[in-house]
């Protein structure tokens, strides 16, 4: 199995899983009839549709053996984890410590994803970006958020 076939198969399985998830959730509710649709009626049908599409994708992957121009590329794990960590830290900090600490932490973690910049450049960005954000969002647009606060 080539790499592309594998991705098609995985994509099919992904869609089938979502279909099952939808059907599972829909069955928890009253399905009703076409005349009196319950809250589960529509999601159930979408779920079934997704199952069919997922099977179709899996089959297509095996059967068509199509040449595709670009293979999928996995983003670097380092970048992925660091940027997700940046968002998590922002979410954890924004209401406890305010805009500047949250933004600075997120930006610093984010800059670590790029290995081509020097530590000095990273630190400059960590200082500069929050200042720009305060000017734009707090002063420019009057966003309701504390610049710094202490409520751990």
């Amino acid at each position: 199995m080539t790499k592309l076939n594998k991705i098609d198969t995985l994509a099919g399985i992904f869609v089938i899983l979502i279909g099952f998830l939808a059907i599972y959730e829909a069955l928890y509710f009253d399905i009703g009839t076409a005349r009196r649709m319950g809250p589960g009626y529509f999601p159930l049908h979408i779920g079934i549709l997704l199952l069919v599409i997922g099977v179709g994708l899996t089959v297509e992957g095996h059967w068509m053996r199509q040449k595709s121009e670009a293979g999928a590329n996995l983003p670097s794990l380092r970048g992925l984890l660091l940027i997700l960590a940046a968002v998590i830290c922002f979410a954890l900090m924004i209401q406890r410590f305010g805009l500047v600490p949250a933004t600075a932490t997120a930006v610093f973690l984010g800059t670590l994803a790029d290995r081509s910049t020097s530590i000095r450049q990273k630190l400059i960005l960590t200082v500069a970006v929050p200042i720009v954000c305060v000017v734009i969002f707090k002063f420019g647009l009057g966003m309701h958020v504390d610049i710094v606060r202490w409520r751990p």
Partner: protein
Amino acid sequence: MNDLFSNLALGFEVAFSIKALWYCFFGVLLGTFVGVLPGVGALAAIALLLPLTFGMEATHALIMLAGIYYGSNYGGSTASILLNLPGSPSSAVACLDGYPMSRQGRGGIALLMTAIASFIGSIVGMIIMGLFSPPLANLAMSFSAPDYFALMVLGLVAAALLSSGSPLRGLAMIGLGVLLGLVGRDIHSGLLRFSYGVDELYEGLPLVAVALGIFGLPEVIRNAGWIKARHINAKDITLRSMIPTRDDWRRSWGAMFRGTGLGSFFGALPGTGGLLAAFMSYSTEKRINKDPSRFGKGAIEGVAGPEAANNAAVQTAFIPTLTLGIPGDVVMAIMLGALVIHGIQPGAAVITSHPDLFWGLLVSFLFGNIFLIILNVPLIGLWVRMLSIPYSVLYPFIIAFICIGVYSVNSSVTDLYVLLFFGVLGCIMAYLRFEPAPLILGLILGPMLEVNMRRALTMSRGDYTVFISRPISALFLGAALLIVMWTLWSVYRRHRAARLERDAAELRR
């Protein structure tokens, strides 16, 4: 006819105020900026700015958001022509012949032709929007639930099959989007669906967080540390270098007008949009040209035609959005969200109940395009310099803007976790080669789809034939079926061509 003039007068009155002109200018400026920058699309920019428009009048908000949209198309073509990097998906076509032109030292001419073609396409698209929207809205007044359901099915099928690489993948994303649209309270029963214990989701998924999560974060994750700084010589692009030869003019006129026609048509179809129009125009120009081998090597027709098509489509995409409440593409879907946030129920009644909004927006397109010409022809050097901002400086700003933008909508930390969730989903989708655009369209149309299906089936007492016994709904479903059949046919043809090629290769051996 009198109506039209009084409406246009109203539009000028709205759009010619200092405030409206300022928002329009700001919108196109920002649009060009994000269009030129790598890795920041119009969609992310609009989703980010959506919260800022909450305090504005709905008309001004829409004028600004629309400005970002068509402005980013301009900027996107500039990046395509000079760097072979499409700043926005719909300007990918501009790379095909625009980049070869700039390598031959004719980049300035390509840029000027792009500006002229865009202007002509936009103005014609605008006129078509003004002429056809009111009658279409009148017609839509007589639509009932089955018709709306059928129209949405048509829009979703078109989006899935015509504008994405793989039909099945497009359909799967539509389905997932529709499901995500159901998250929250079911208006009929009041029950919470698909919320998995997160009660904050009862109003549905926050649109800005989903859009930025699925488009914005994966983009940053993919590009951080990978896009290298680029060097362009800003001195190469001068006003003098932009003057086209007589031959360039002769070749471009026809292409521009054909492109405008194609673009106006495809833009007005729900679910298609600029990219398809641009590709159609490109392949048309190539087919009718006496010497098709010039294409891909810097044929000016291949720049002028698709650019006109793209921009005409951008304007006419507002027709289904504002008259039927069916978005033409993802950006339009976000615009619909903006309308709803401003308390305007999208649909056939918008033109009659908010004439100032519709006609003001229409006239603002004229000013916006004039601003764009000023920004992009005499000031082109500025944007060329902007192209060389390294991504390593840019993306920390993007991360901060995404986080703050999402948080500022509801001051909700839950929204940030939604952003995170969809960021991860977006990465998985990118790995599996799913496109995110149909998902957003499904997300916006999902709830409306369910409501209209329920209404239609209640009306007909559960009889599904209601969708084909009404002429309007039958027409839409028929069109959807045609698209499905055309897709199957072209997949079959491609498959057969590939097999023939394989057989031929084996014979040679």
